[in-house]
């Protein structure tokens, strides 16, 4: 059975409503909790990014043998040196901006991240990465559990999802995370605008939303969602006037990152952001070698959006306070399929960007030779085997960036992973 938010909410909404902060205290809370200036931005590439087309093992003959249509010619990759095993690697030719950030020492790339018995299901895989619990990927997410550990009551703008649905990663038991894809749309209309009935309507709607019946947790959940909307409207409106210092591309990811930068600059109290971009489920027509092929479009979007965000943060003096962490639910199979695409695989790659990042290449590339005896591959040599458990990356972020205890958040000790944070 797919594990859904519903099952969580069944057990969780009652608790969820208890410590919801009342609107009148929010401005104080935002100030009080603003002591930590550190921001975390989680970037999810949805669909399962083909890591071998992002970071290219351009000297591995098997890469070219197993990907006759999709392999990117060695001459065009953006060389960024060798990993600790001596394997030369290069970025996708479209990632020119990321190479600039890499050369500035502000981008860490962690190869072969994953977990044992990797799920090839989008939904289960995403739930596993979200909960950091492969054996039982349900309930709150890893950042939701972090939010639950903050001193209560928690400002409802502490976290911000830039997609419509709250991702499981941010699902918490005691904190409702607002979803604000577009701050301009995040407003309360009235059928009687510019009359006394408009504020009167908002007042009555707020009163109705304050009803949180314990015997109807489903209604309490929806009303608490409305309450959180009313409590966050006015601060979010401040972000709509943000004028960035860099040109963000006019796509979903670029505009989401522009909004995130605006929220940081305006200082509205948000510390954890979720951004997402899709289209990585490239079963067919991945076309890495066609100018406007689908994978190139994905890389262009990623590159232009992240470069603008990096530049804007640098100009605003916020780079040192910001960490961006990227993941995807799985990597893809080593061999291409007959549709100029790749099917669901296992280990992928993560990267981290920001002023506190110790840039470089972490982990070692897989040897792509097919064969059940190849220890860097799994599933009869079809898929990349993980080397770094993704939970050890989370542990580093929790301990060294968020200042919380990773063994509590993750329920186990995953310390000792790659040292990508200074």
């Amino acid at each position, binding site marked *: 059975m797919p594990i859904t938010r519903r099952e969580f909410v069944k057990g969780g909404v009652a608790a969820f409503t208890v410590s919801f902060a009342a609107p009148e205290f929010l401005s104080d809370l935002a100030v009080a909790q603003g002591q930590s200036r550190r921001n975390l931005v989680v970037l999810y590439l949805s669909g399962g990014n083909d890591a071998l087309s992002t970071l290219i093992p351009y000297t591995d003959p098997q890469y070219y043998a197993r990907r006759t249509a999709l392999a990117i010619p060695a001459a065009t990759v953006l060389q960024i040196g060798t990993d600790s095993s001596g394997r030369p690697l290069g970025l996708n030719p479209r990632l020119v901006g990321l190479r600039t950030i890499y050369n500035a020492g502000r981008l860490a790339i962690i190869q072969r991240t994953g977990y044992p018995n990797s799920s090839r299901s989008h939904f289960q895989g995403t739930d596993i990465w979200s909960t950091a619990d492969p054996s039982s990927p349900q309930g709150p997410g890893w950042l939701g559990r972090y939010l639950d550990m903050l001193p209560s009551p928690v400002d409802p703008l502490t976290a911000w999802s830039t997609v419509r649905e709250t991702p499981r990663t941010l699902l918490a038991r005691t904190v*409702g995370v*607002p979803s604000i894809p577009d701050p301009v749309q995040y407003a309360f209309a009235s059928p009687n605008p510019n009359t006394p009935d408009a504020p009167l309507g908002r007042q009555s709607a707020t009163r*109705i939303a304050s009803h949180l019946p314990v015997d109807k947790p*489903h209604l309490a959940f929806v009303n608490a969602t409305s309450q959180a909307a009313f409590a966050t409207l006015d601060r979010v409106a401040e972000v709509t006037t943000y004028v960035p210092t860099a040109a963000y591309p006019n796509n979903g990811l670029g505009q989401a990152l522009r909004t995130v930068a605006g929220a940081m600059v305006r200082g509205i109290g948000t510390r954890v952001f979720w951004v997402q971009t899709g289209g990585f489920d490239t079963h067919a027509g991945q076309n890495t070698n066609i100018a406007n092929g689908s994978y190139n479009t994905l890389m262009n979007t990623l590159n232009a959006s992240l470069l603008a965000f990096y530049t804007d943060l640098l100009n605003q003096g916020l780079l040192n306070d910001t960490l961006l962490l990227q993941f995807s639910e799985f990597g893809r199979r080593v061999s*291409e399929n*007959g549709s100029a695409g790749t099917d669901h695989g296992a280990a992928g790659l993560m990267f981290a960007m920001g002023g506190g990042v110790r840039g470089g290449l972490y982990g070692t590339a897989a040897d792509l030779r097919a064969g059940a005896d190849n220890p860097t591959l799994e599933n009869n040599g079809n898929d990349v085997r993980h080397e770094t458990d993704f939970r050890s990356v989370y542990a580093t972020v929790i301990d060294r960036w968020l200042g919380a205890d990773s063994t509590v958040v993750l329920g186990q000790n995953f310390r000792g992973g790659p040292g990508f944070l200074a």
Partner: protein
Amino acid sequence: MNEDLDHLFRRGAFGASQQDVAEYARLGFLGFSSAVAHLLDYARLPDDVDDFIGRPGYTGITAPGGFLPASIIGHARQRWLFRMVHSRRPLQEKMALFWHNHFATAYSKIAGELNATEATRMLAAKPSEDPGGVKGQLELLREHALGNFRDLLVAIAQDPAMLVWLDGRSNFRAQPQENFARELMELFTMGVGTFAETDVYAGARVFTGWNLARPGTGAAQYYAFIYNAGQHDTGAKTFTFPIYPSGSTTIPARAAASGMQDGLDLINAVAAHPLTGPRLARKLYAFFINEVDNPDPALITEVAQIYYSRNYAIEPMVRRLLLSSQFRDPANYYKRYAWPAEFVVRALKEVGPVGFSVNDALTPLANMGQQLFEPPDVNGWELGPGWFSTGSMLARMNFASQLATNQKFNLREAARPHAATPEALVTHVLDRLTAQEYSGSSQAALMDYARTGASYPASDAQLATKVAGLVHLVVGSGDYQFI
């Protein structure tokens, strides 16, 4: 209407408008079970809803350059919404929406791989709107809405939109495409965690050659399913679960010419799989009875048994659910989170559809998280609490405001006999909107809104302001988000 009929029409339909109520009275329902029969036996009623598009007395559509629902996706969305509001066969549209979520197929990928016109046609064309008479996916879902699930699976496996969406069109012998085979097992039938990776490989080989053809020439070209024998992998395929009633787990090697039978055998097997019936029963239970509390295991078991004993027929499963004592139990009323499309259509029916263009509901629906023909992925929408975030809740409240603004005149006229006191006005609005019982504090908030700044009996201007404001508050309230 009685409360149980209101409940039936919220769940088995999209609510009931004032006109619907009059029509049902004219048909002279003898009671609940005759109303259930009316909804279920829709094949006796004409499928003529499209004839009323553009006529006065119905919700509007917006198509300045001509209405082209088989080539412009925004028009296809409008047509479906129009059908949900006005069809005489609302359960058919309701089930089509259920299956659209189950076999979730998104326009944008198809449009990206082909083009906007072909993608719209593949998703929404009626046979008469396609040069080859091929049904768009929605028409196929409507046709099989209460039909046979196994037949629906075959139709979906051969559906041009699905062949593009899950890449079956490029499933060739030399390099099998796993996408469709995986989702057939994981999402369409048995469920996640019930099969092995080897089943995915074998399933992909089974469907090799289930491709897409493009017969015809010029403007008469169209897309259709083809079994491409030359691309079929003729070898035997072995699964971890039984394929045949004998218990055999292997589809035998077959000549290429008869290799299409492989796919039919696998579809039979996943339809017959012991986990498929219970999974469908649970989804239908959550859809029709209650998705908030733990399901009733006895009823789930019974509905699953009906699935097998009636040879995968959907209609008897739904009939059993609608006629169950659980369905009529008031404890199950308002225990389903309204999908955005259900919320919008119910609001249109209850507040008033005439004078509103369904085109103006499309952007709000997207903001609420449900753009028709654009599910987020093949897993469909995240239902239940998944619909609700602060942003999507504001979109619901703001749609309520938009609709109340649009219907101010009609609302005022209907409210005129109830303008004597604020109590009468609030009662009128709650009754019209089939609202669940409000808590004392929420009722007080509505009353205070009705009272403040107005004198009663209310003047026309005051009445228009207050009734629109009250409709906004009720339709935008948490209580109204449940059906």
